[in-house]
């Protein structure tokens, strides 16, 4: 029907009709998505704007003073405690995203290149633990690393150590291990998707032209999968910087992160504006770090070619 109409001599009319149709399509499409869009506006965009506004205000006991001030940001950036927490959070999230990506890449590669008929089964196996409660996964690490925990009692049973080690739990390494485990699946999926898009004939061409497996991997497959590596790194880095549960359960005093300080401002300390400023600062700084990571990976990718 439409094909016949397009070929008709009354070309101008068809185009006008098609324009009208397109317009009504746009309207229909927009109308259909608007409830979800409005929901996201009210519960995501508006709240973030409110946080932004609060970060420029001050609080006296229970009343909010609405005069504009940068005092909260001064505190957030210069008070040693917040500066240290922020640095530690950035360090932890950077380390965690580095390890998750490094550990995830071979798996994604294996599934994509050697998965054969069982690709989706492998993906399913890898994502299943991720769907179990995050709180429970953190808790199980506490069970493993604890003073009376699995690892200590296991090592003692094997005669490797004489008394339980306290070095396992309640420090930033415990936080890094737990988060690396918790976010594993998040890193595998984007890398897998980008590896699936790698044109296999290019790899063959590289081999035919005399590149060994390692060379063809480094010069063809790895650079072509860089977008997946980038999104994997970001998808792990940004959420982990604001993790609350892991530092609280396995971090101890040395593993406290910025989210714990933010929570305190909305809880016990009851200083919403400072909490808001800490949140905004965290988001800005992690965005900068994410941007830098993207630039670095792109630069490496260009070098590899």
């Amino acid at each position: 029907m439409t094909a016949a109409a397009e070929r008709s001599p009354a070309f101008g009319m068809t185009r006008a009709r098609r324009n009208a149709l397109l317009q009504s399509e746009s309207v229909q499409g927009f109308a259909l998505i608007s409830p979800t869009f409005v929901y996201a506006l009210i519960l995501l965009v508006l709240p973030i704007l409110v946080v932004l506004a609060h970060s420029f205000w001050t609080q006296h006991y229970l009343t909010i003073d609405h005069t504009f001030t940068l005092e909260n940001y001064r505190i957030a950036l210069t008070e040693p405690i917040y500066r240290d927490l922020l640095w530690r959070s950035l360090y932890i999230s950077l380390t965690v995203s580095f390890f998750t990506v490094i550990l995830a890449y071979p798996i994604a590669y294996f599934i994509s290149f050697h998965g054969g008929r069982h690709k989706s089964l492998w993906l399913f196996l890898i994502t299943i633990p991720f769907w179990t409660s995050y709180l429970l996964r953190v808790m199980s690490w506490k069970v493993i690393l604890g003073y009376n925990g699995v690892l200590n009692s296991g090592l003692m049973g094997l005669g490797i150590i004489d008394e339980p080690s306290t070095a396992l739990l309640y420090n930033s390494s415990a936080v890094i291990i737990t988060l690396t485990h918790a976010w594993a699946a998040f890193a595998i999926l984007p890398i897998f998707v980008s590896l699936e898009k790698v044109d296999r004939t290019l790899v063959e061409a590289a081999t035919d032209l005399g590149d060994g497996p390692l060379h063809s991997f480094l010069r063809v497959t790895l650079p072509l999968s860089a977008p997946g590596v980038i999104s994997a790194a970001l998808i792990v880095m940004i959420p982990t910087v604001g993790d609350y549960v892991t530092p609280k359960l396995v971090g101890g005093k040395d593993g406290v992160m910025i989210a714990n300080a933010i929570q305190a401002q909305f809880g016990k300390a009851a200083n919403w504006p400072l909490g808001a400023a800490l949140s905004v600062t965290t988001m800005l700084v992690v965005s900068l770090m994410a941007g830098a990571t993207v630039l670095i990976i792109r630069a490496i990718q260009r070098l590899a070619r």
Partner: protein
Amino acid sequence: MTAMRRFFAGGWLTAYAFLYIVFLYLPVIFLPIFSINTAPTPKFPLTGYTLKWYEDLPKTPALLDAAWNSLIVGVSASVLATLLGILAARSITRYRYPGRRTINGLIMAPLVLPEIILAISMLLVMLQLGLSLSLFTVVLGHVLICIPYSMTVLTAGFEGFDRSLEEASADLGESAFGTFRRVTLPMVAPAIISSLLVCFTISLDEFVIAFFLTGTETTLPIYIWGQLRFAAKLPGVLALGTLLLVASFVLMTVAEILRRRAARRTQNEGGLYA
């Protein structure tokens, strides 16, 4: 020679893949192991088999309340998120219009934002609007974080959907609603059920947002969080955690099976008759 080398490369990778799976599953497996151990502290060697930690669970009224609350929140959040997800996924896969990508990006954003930021920003707005914190506010928060997952499942199910089937139905005199109910819905039903299950699982397991947005009521993760302070309560928490693990596992497996069926149904027409 190359074949052999490739095999060895693949062999190393296979070994690594199995090790990785062990790394993924091992920590989680300790929960069920120690939940049926007689000793109250989770350490080796195991002392003996018991179900007493499980038997104690139904005798805890606070736990039953939390389970009931989780059920209410999970069902409400998954239904709402899936409804909003259906509208958005349908719009994204069926129509082309300016701003489509931006809106999609905004709707998907909660997936990559730190939960603490989402939680405190929603908390601030709700308090400003004068909403008292309750299970209702938890549902509002859970819907926001469930929509991206619902969208992912549903767009996969809606994509490649053959529009000519709907057109045929309309040409044969079926009303818009009738077409939706009798043609579109049966095609996408598996994706919708899969989305409901995924959202329910997320809501059931979600802690941070529920922790910030709830008033006095607790959900299961909040209940567990409260119990973690008492070392003596650990075995009960392990038992409850094991039940939650099993629930998530079963729900996600069913969701995955349905999702695949949905993909098969919409992506090759032959699937309907085969």
